[in-house]
């Protein structure tokens, strides 16, 4: 019964998001990877959209529970039915079948997902409530949202300052909504964690394959699955994998819309994903801001200021709902934003920190030591494999490459001026923060690979010779 309820809670918003993506982006091609990636994007975006609906319900005075599940299900069924009527008769775009290596990459990715699923399930079995931050912050808040009824704002009282009440609410809302459907069960946060950990690589594979073919797509996703901190923080039930997942989807969609500015729907869905990253964690908001800046600059360079503003407005329109939720949360529920980091510091103290070479060395050295997968040389593999596949350096001037670079600089800047003890702050946060742009970096590097020729084109060329 619990499994059925959890399945319904996930399937309904996912169906709505799938149809919405189809309406705005067109249907995916018949290719298995394209359909899988679209499903992955739909499930993750559906989780975010359903969290926004639950937040609106709470703000309107409602409480999460059985009656809310009925309202939520009804809303998504009606919305999905409306989109399904409009989508009748739309045919998927034709696609050429992948060559033998492309098919082999898809098989390898499928096997990789099976092994990663076993690793995630094993990790969750060892840590059923997640690691420290999961039960002290995210799942604690989800319990409040469910158990406190109309007094849910009690979760944000100053007495609970240690539980970081200023952190945005997407993840607790997503979990509490599953509680409303299935009752309070540890399976709910476990399922959410597993979905983000396992579906983001599929979304990555699809996004890369759209540009560079299934071999590059499979390679990028396999490297993400190979990243130890990806699986680890996923099974910890922390918010970092969800933030990285939404940033990835946002960078992929917004980046693709740069090449096809007439596809406003793609830009809007990219904006939605970036906004959801911001409503998951404040670092996600900073990452989304980096994407907006880079996206605007690239569009400006390509088509001029007026066109860039017009196109940026589509991204902004997509981000509007989660941005509104974030602003309402901070204005009406929990006013502080990163209070530990925004303590006032004198200009002299800030300048001393910024000009301290030892501080730079410590921060950069720590960043190099905890970069995702560095212990297994995965960043080197992430560079070497695209080079092996014929990487085009000019294609690296993309949102997915430049926005993570900006996120990295911003991360260094935050650690440079942090008022917290540097060694403690580095050891407790740097590895998680560096995970946020990692999938997007893989997207940028493997997305800069030229697509392999389709077998039919290759055969035609041979015949012409």
């Amino acid at each position, binding site marked *: 019964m619990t499994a059925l309820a959890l399945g319904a809670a996930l399937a309904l918003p996912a169906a709505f998001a799938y149809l919405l993506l189809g309406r705005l982006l067109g249907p995916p091609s018949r290719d298995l990877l394209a359909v899988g990636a679209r499903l992955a994007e739909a499930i993750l975006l559906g989780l975010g959209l359903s969290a926004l609906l639950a937040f609106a319900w709470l703000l309107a005075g409602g409480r999460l529970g059985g009656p809310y599940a009925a309202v939520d299900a009804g809303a998504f069924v009606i919305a999905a039915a409306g989109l399904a009527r409009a989508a009748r008769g739309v045919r998927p775009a034709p696609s050429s079948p992948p060559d033998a290596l492309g098919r082999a990459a898809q098989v390898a990715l499928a*096997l990789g997902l099976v092994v990663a699923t076993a690793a995630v399930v094993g990790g969750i079995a060892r840590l059923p409530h997640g690691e420290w931050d999961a039960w002290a912050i995210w799942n604690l808040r989800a319990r409040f949202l469910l158990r406190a009824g109309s007094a849910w704002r009690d979760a944000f009282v100053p007495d609970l300052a240690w539980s970081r009440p200023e952190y945005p609410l997407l993840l607790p809302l997503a979990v509490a909504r599953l509680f409303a459907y299935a009752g309070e069960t540890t399976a709910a946060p476990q399922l959410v964690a597993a979905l983000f950990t396992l579906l983001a690589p599929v979304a990555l594979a699809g996004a890369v394959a759209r540009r560079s073919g299934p071999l590059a797509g499979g390679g990028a996703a396999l*490297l993400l699955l190979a990243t130890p901190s990806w699986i680890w923080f996923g099974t910890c039930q922390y918010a970092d994998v969800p933030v990285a997942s939404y940033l990835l989807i946002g960078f992929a969609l917004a980046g693709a819309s740069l090449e096809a500015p007439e596809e406003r729907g793609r830009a809007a869905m990219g904006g939605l994903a970036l906004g959801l990253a911001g409503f998951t964690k404040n670092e996600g908001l900073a990452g989304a801001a980096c994407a907006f800046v880079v996206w605007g600059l690239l569009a400006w360079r390509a088509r001029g200021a007026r066109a860039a503003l017009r196109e940026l407005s589509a991204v902004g329109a997509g981000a509007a709902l989660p941005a509104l939720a974030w602003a309402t949360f901070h204005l009406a529920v929990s006013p502080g934003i990163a209070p530990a980091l925004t303590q006032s510091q004198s200009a002299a103290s800030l300048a001393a920190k910024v000009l301290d070479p030892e501080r730079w060395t410590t921060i950069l050295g720590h960043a190099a030591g905890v970069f995702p997968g560095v212990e*297994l040389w995965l960043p080197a593999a992430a560079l070497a494999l695209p080079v092996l596949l014929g990487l085009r350096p000019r294609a690296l001037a993309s949102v997915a490459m430049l926005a993570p670079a900006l996120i990295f600089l911003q991360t260094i800047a935050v650690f440079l001026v942090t008022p917290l003890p540097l060694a403690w702050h580095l050891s407790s946060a740097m590895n998680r923060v560096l995970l946020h742009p990692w999938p997007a970096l893989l997207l940028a590097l493997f997305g800069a690979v030229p697509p392999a020729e389709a077998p039919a084109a290759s055969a035609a060329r041979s015949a012409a010779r």
Partner: protein
Amino acid sequence: MRLSPLRRSLALLVAAALGLALPAYRLFQGPRRSPAANSPGEADAVLSPLRAALPPGARLGVAVLEDPATSASDAARLYLTEYALAPAIATPVMLRDCFERGREACGLGKVGFLTLAAPEPHATQIAALLGLVPVARSGEVVLLGRRAP
């Protein structure tokens, strides 16, 4: 652009080897966990029976030996109690302060209930010294209140 099948095959082999071997290694690797990582389940099992005795909006003290800001074990005790007994709002109460400086100074005056991990008869004796009575018990933990249920 036409790449040799060898280069493409090599790239696939490396990616597949990494993507399959590393999650598989993780599967058989021992647990990476902090000492408190398994505690939420235990805290839930012990403390959740006490939830029924707590009224909505209850303010709950958690008896600790040291300030949770400086003691990891007392911080864990506070956080785990909050996790298990939410939406009651848990705050730390240092018993030593209660005896040395009085109820108000230790924060006992601000809460309606107190969780105390102590076996009998010590729990009842401490409750009497604090002017509280046992309200409910689960395992080694007793919930103290101002009056009997």
